[in-house]
C-alpha cells in the first residue's frame, strides 16, 4: 500500500470506517445480548426461588382448609394465590420465550457483525521460516502417544469412580414384606400372627398385681382413648387413640414404655358430618397393623394413615364415611405388601360393603371387591391353607374366602347371621366362624364356590360369644361370652368338653400361651386357665383398671391396654 496513492488511501479509509461501524454494531449487539441474557437469568431465578415458596404457602393453606373446610377466608386466599401463581407463571413463560427470541436475534447480529469485522481486518498469511521440523515431528509422535495413554488412564479413573457405587443384588432380600418367622416373633396385628391369639413365646408371666405394682414393669398413659389393641414390632409398640375431634397414632418404646412419638391424623370428613359413635366401640376401635417398616391405622371415619417407624406420615386416604350402626371397628390385616381393609357397612341390599387391598407403599388401591354382606365388626385373617393363602372374612350372612393377591372369591359358606363382631380363626385344618348367640361353625377350607352344604364339618350351639373371638391350640377351641361363660370344644368332632361361669364380663378375646389360656375381663382381671379337657384355673390377677382391648405378647412380656394406660407385665426382677 502506498500512502501517496489517493485512490488506495480513500479505499483504505472507507474500509476503516466500514470496519468501525460493523465493529460498533457487534459491540452494541453483544451488550444487548448480555442484558437480555441477564434478564432471562433473573427471570429464571425468580421462577426457581419464588414459585416454590408460593407453592409451599399454597399447600399450607390447603392443609389449613382441610382442617377448617368451611373457612371462606382461607378459601379466598387459596383462590387468589393460585390465580397469582398461574398469572405469574404465564407471564414468565412469555417473558422467557420473547427473551429467547431477542437473545437469538442479538447473538445472530453480534456474530454476523463480528465475522464481517474480522474479515475486514483479516491479515494476509505470512508464513515464518520453519525451524527444526524433524524435532517437531518426533515430539508430536511422542506426545500423541502420551495423550492417548492419558485418555486411557483418565477413563480408568472415571470407571473406578463409577464402579464403587453401591451395587444391588436382586437375589438378596427381594421381598418387601416380613418373613413368616419375623411375623411369628412379633405381634403385627389384632390378636397377633394370623389373628389366632396364640403367642409364639411361652415364657409369659402368670402372676401380677396392678394395685401393688407386682410384675408391672412399666405403665404409660395413652393420650387419647380407644379400644384398639397393641401392635408390636421389635422394640416398638403402636396404638391409636381418638375422640370426636382428634385422631392420633402413638409409638411407644417396648422396653422402657416411653412415648416415642405421637402423630395426628386429619380427616376428610367435615366437622358437622362426624357421627356420634358409641362409647363401647370408641373413636379408635380398629387395631393397627404393621409390615415391619411402616405402620397403618384406620379410624371409624374412614381415614387410613400410614407412618414409618420414625413417625413420618407416608400417606393418607379416606375411604368415605362408613355407614356402621355401632361405629366401624374392623381391624387391619396385611398380606405381603397389601393392606387389607374389610369395609363392611349398611345392609347387604345397600351393596356398600367392600374389601380394599391398598398398596402399603403408596396407599393406592391394588384391588377392590364388592361384598354381598351387611355391616360387620369382625377382622379378616390371612391363613396359609395348604400351599395357598386365603383371606377369610366373616359377615352376615356368610363366611367368604378370597385370594388375597387379587380378591378373587374362592369359597363361601352361609353359616353366620346378625351383628358379627367375633373374628374368624384358622386352627386344626378348620376355619371357625362365630354366629353371635347362635352357633360356632367349623368349615373345611379346601372347597370352591358355595360350600355351605358340603364343607361345614360341624356346628355347636349354646354359650356362643357376641364380641370376643375364639382361640384354639389346634386340639381344643375356647369361647368366652360377654356374660362370663367359658367353654371348651373338641376340634375333631365339635364335642363340648366343658363350660364354666367365671362370673366376669369379657370384651377382650382370649389368648393361648403355651399350655395356658389367658382371658382378660372388662374389670381388668386376668384369668389364666390350663388348656385341657377339664377346667382348671391357674391364676387370677388384678390390674385395677377396666380393659376392653385384647393383650399382645412378646418375649417374656404381656402388653395390656387399659382404659387409660398401656401396661407392660413381666418379670420385674
Amino acid at each position, binding site marked *: 500500500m502506498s500512502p501517496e496513492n489517493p485512490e488506495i488511501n480513500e479505499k483504505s479509509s472507507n474500509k476503516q470506517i466500514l470496519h468501525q461501524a460493523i465493529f460498533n454494531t457487534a459491540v452494541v449487539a453483544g451488550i444487548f445480548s448480555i442484558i437480555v441474557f441477564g434478564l432471562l437469568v433473573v427471570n429464571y431465578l425468580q421462577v426457581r426461588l419464588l414459585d416454590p415458596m408460593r407453592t409451599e404457602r399454597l399447600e399450607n393453606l390447603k392443609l389449613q382448609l382441610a382442617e377448617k373446610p368451611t373457612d371462606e377466608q382461607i378459601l379466598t386466599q387459596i383462590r387468589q394465590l393460585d390465580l397469582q401463581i398461574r398469572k405469574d407463571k404465564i407471564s414468565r413463560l412469555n417473558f422467557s420465550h420473547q427473551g*429467547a427470541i431477542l437473545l437469538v436475534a442479538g447473538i445472530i447480529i453480534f456474530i454476523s457483525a463480528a465475522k464481517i469485522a474480522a474479515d475486514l481486518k483479516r491479515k494476509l498469511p505470512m*508464513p515464518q521460516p520453519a525451524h527444526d521440523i524433524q524435532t517437531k515431528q518426533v515430539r508430536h509422535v511422542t*506426545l500423541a502417544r502420551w495423550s*492417548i495413554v492419558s*485418555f*486411557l488412564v483418565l477413563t480408568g479413573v*472415571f470407571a473406578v469412580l*463409577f464402579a464403587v457405587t453401591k*451395587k444391588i443384588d436382586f437375589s438378596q432380600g427381594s421381598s418387601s414384606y416380613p418373613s413368616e418367622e419375623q411375623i411369628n416373633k412379633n405381634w403385627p396385628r389384632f390378636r397377633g400372627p394370623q389373628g389366632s391369639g396364640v403367642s409364639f413365646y411361652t415364657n409369659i408371666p402368670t402372676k401380677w398385681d396392678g394395685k401393688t405394682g407386682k410384675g408391672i414393669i412399666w405403665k404409660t398413659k395413652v393420650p387419647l382413648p380407644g379400644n384398639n389393641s397393641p401392635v408390636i414390632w421389635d422394640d416398638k409398640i403402636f396404638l391409636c387413640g381418638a375422640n370426636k375431634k382428634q385422631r392420633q397414632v402413638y409409638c411407644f418404646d417396648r422396653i422402657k414404655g416411653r412415648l416415642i412419638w405421637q402423630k395426628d391424623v386429619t380427616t376428610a370428613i367435615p366437622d358437622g358430618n362426624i357421627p356420634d359413635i358409641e362409647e363401647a366401640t370408641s373413636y379408635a376401635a380398629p387395631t393397627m397393623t404393621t409390615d415391619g417398616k411402616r405402620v397403618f391405622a384406620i379410624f371409624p371415619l374412614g381415614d387410613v394413615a400410614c407412618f414409618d417407624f420414625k413417625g413420618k406420615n407416608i400417606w393418607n386416604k379416606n375411604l368415605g364415611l362408613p355407614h356402621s350402626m355401632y361405629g366401624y371397628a374392623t381391624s387391619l390385616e396385611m398380606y405381603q*405388601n397389601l393392606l387389607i381393609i374389610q369395609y363392611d357397612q349398611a345392609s347387604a341390599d345397600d351393596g356398600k360393603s367392600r374389601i380394599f387391598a391398598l398398596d402399603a407403599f403408596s396407599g393406592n388401591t391394588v384391588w377392590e371387591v364388592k361384598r354381598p354382606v351387611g355391616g360387620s365388626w369382625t377382622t379378616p385373617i390371612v391363613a396359609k391353607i395348604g400351599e395357598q393363602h386365603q383371606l377369610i372374612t366373616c359377615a352376615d350372612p356368610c363366611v367368604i374366602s378370597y385370594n388375597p393377591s387379587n380378591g378373587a372369591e374362592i369359597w363361601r359358606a352361609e353359616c353366620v347371621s346378625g351383628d358379627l363382631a367375633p373374628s374368624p380363626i384358622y386352627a386344626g385344618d378348620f376355619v371357625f366362624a362365630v354366629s353371635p348367640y347362635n352357633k360356632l361353625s367349623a368349615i373345611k377350607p379346601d372347597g370352591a364356590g358355595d360350600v355351605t352344604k358340603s364343607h361345614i364339618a360341624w356346628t355347636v350351639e349354646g354359650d356362643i360369644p357376641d364380641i370376643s373371638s375364639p382361640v384354639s391350640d389346634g386340639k381344643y377351641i375356647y369361647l368366652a361370652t360377654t356374660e362370663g361363660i367359658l367353654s371348651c370344644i373338641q376340634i375333631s368332632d365339635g364335642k363340648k368338653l366343658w363350660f364354666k361361669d367365671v362370673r366376669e364380663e369379657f370384651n377382650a378375646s382370649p389368648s393361648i400361651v403355651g399350655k395356658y389360656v389367658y382371658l382378660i375381663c372388662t374389670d381388668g382381671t386376668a384369668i389364666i386357665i390350663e388348656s385341657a379337657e377339664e377346667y382348671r384355673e391357674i391364676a387370677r390377677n388384678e390390674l385395677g383398671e377396666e380393659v376392653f382391648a385384647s393383650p399382645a405378647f412378646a418375649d417374656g412380656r404381656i402388653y395390656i391396654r387399659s382404659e387409660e394406660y398401656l401396661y407392660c407385665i413381666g418379670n420385674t426382677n
Partner: protein
Amino acid sequence: MISSRYITIPIIFLLLCTQTLWAVERFPPPDFVETDHKLPSTDYITDVTPRLVLYEYIDVAVLAGTLSLASYLVLKNRSRRAIFALMIFSLLYFGFWRKGCICSIGSIQNLVLSVFSNSYVIPLTVLAFFILPLAFTLFFGRTFCAAVCPLGAIQDVVLLRPLVLPKWLESGLRLCAYLYLGAAVLFASTDSAFIICRYDPFVAFFRLTGRLNMMILGACLLVIGVFIGRPYCRFLCPYGVILRQFSRLSRWHATITPDECIKCRLCEDACPFNAINTPTAPWPASNYRKSKIAITSILIISPVIIFLAVLLGASISDSWSKMNPTVRLAERIYLENNGMVEGTINESVAFRSAGTPVSELYQQASIIKNQFKFGGRLLGCFIGFVISLMLINNSIQRRREDYQTDRAGCVSCGRCFQFCPKEQERLKKLKEQSA
C-alpha cells in the same frame, strides 16, 4: 373424451389430502375412568393436527438435495461463501425449523435398536438420514459436516477467533467420540436410552427451550467454539467417528489446491480444525529403530490394553445399567422394600398399583444388567482396540511431500481454498472467461 390430466390432477390432490390419515395419534389419550374426567374436545392443545408424514419425505428430499449441493460446492464450485450460505440454510431448516430432529447423528441409535429389538422397526426416513450422509461421504468426503449438519453449522457460525490446538492433543481428545459412540450403541441396543438425543447440546437452542443443564452445556460448547473450531464435531460426535472412516476411503475429496501444490505454505494456518497435513522432513535415522520398537511394543501390549479396557467396561456396566428405566425402577422398588429410601416416586407407585410381581421386575432387571455386563465388556474391547490402533497409527513414520487435507479430519468447510495462490489463479481465469 375427458383428458387424462383432468382425472390425474384431482386424484393427486386427493392423495395428498389423505396424508393426514397417516398422521394418526401414536399414543391414545387416557380415558380417566376413575375420575370421569372428559378430555375437552375443543382444547387447542388436543386439537393440534399431527405432523404430516409427507414432511418426513420432504426432509429426506431436502437432505439429499443439500448433500448434493454441498458436494458440488466443495468439489466443483470451491466457494466458501456458497458453502457458508448452504450451511446457514441447513442450520435454519434442520436446526431451527425442524428443531434438530430428525438428525443423522441420532439415527445411529434407531438403527442399533432396530437390530437388537424385535419390537422396533426403523422408519425408512430415519434409515435414509443414516445412510445418505455416509454414501455421500464415501464419494465426496465429509460434505455433510461442511454444510448440512445443523450441529456442525451452529458451531461453525460462532467460530470467531480460531485457535489451533496441538495435533497430539487432538489424538487423545478424539477418543471421547469413540467412547460416546460405544456408549450410545450400548444404551440403544439395551433399549435403555437414546443418549445422543438426550444429551444433544444444541437442540435446546434450536427449540428455544430445554433443560437448564443442557442449555449450560450447549452454551459452554458454543463459547469454546468461538476459539476452538467445532469442538463437538471433532471430539464428541459419534456419527463423526463413522464419517471419518468413510471419508478416508472417499472417491473424491476436497483439496486445498485445484492444481499442483507449490508448497508456498500460505495455507499452513488456514484450517481451524487442524485438518491440513504439512509436508514432512526426513525422519532421523535413529528414530526409525525407536519407531519399530514402539510399534512392536504396542502390538505386544495391545492384548493387555484391550484386557484392561474390558475390565473397565465390565466395572462400569452396573452403574450404566441404571440408565435403563426397568433397572432404575427395580432398584427403586428394592430400596423402598428394604427401607433404604423414604417415600415413593410416581413410577414405583404406578408399578405397585399394576400388581405385577416384584420378582418378575427383578428378573427383567437382572437380564438387562447382564446385557450391560456383556455390552460393557464389548465396549471396553472396542475402546481398547481403538486405543491400540491409534497408538500404532501415531508411531508410523509417514512421508508427505505436499500440503494435503487430512481426509478423515477435514470437514470440507472450504476455508483453505482462498489461501491457495493456485486457487486465486483459477478464479481469475474463470473471471476472465466469463468476462
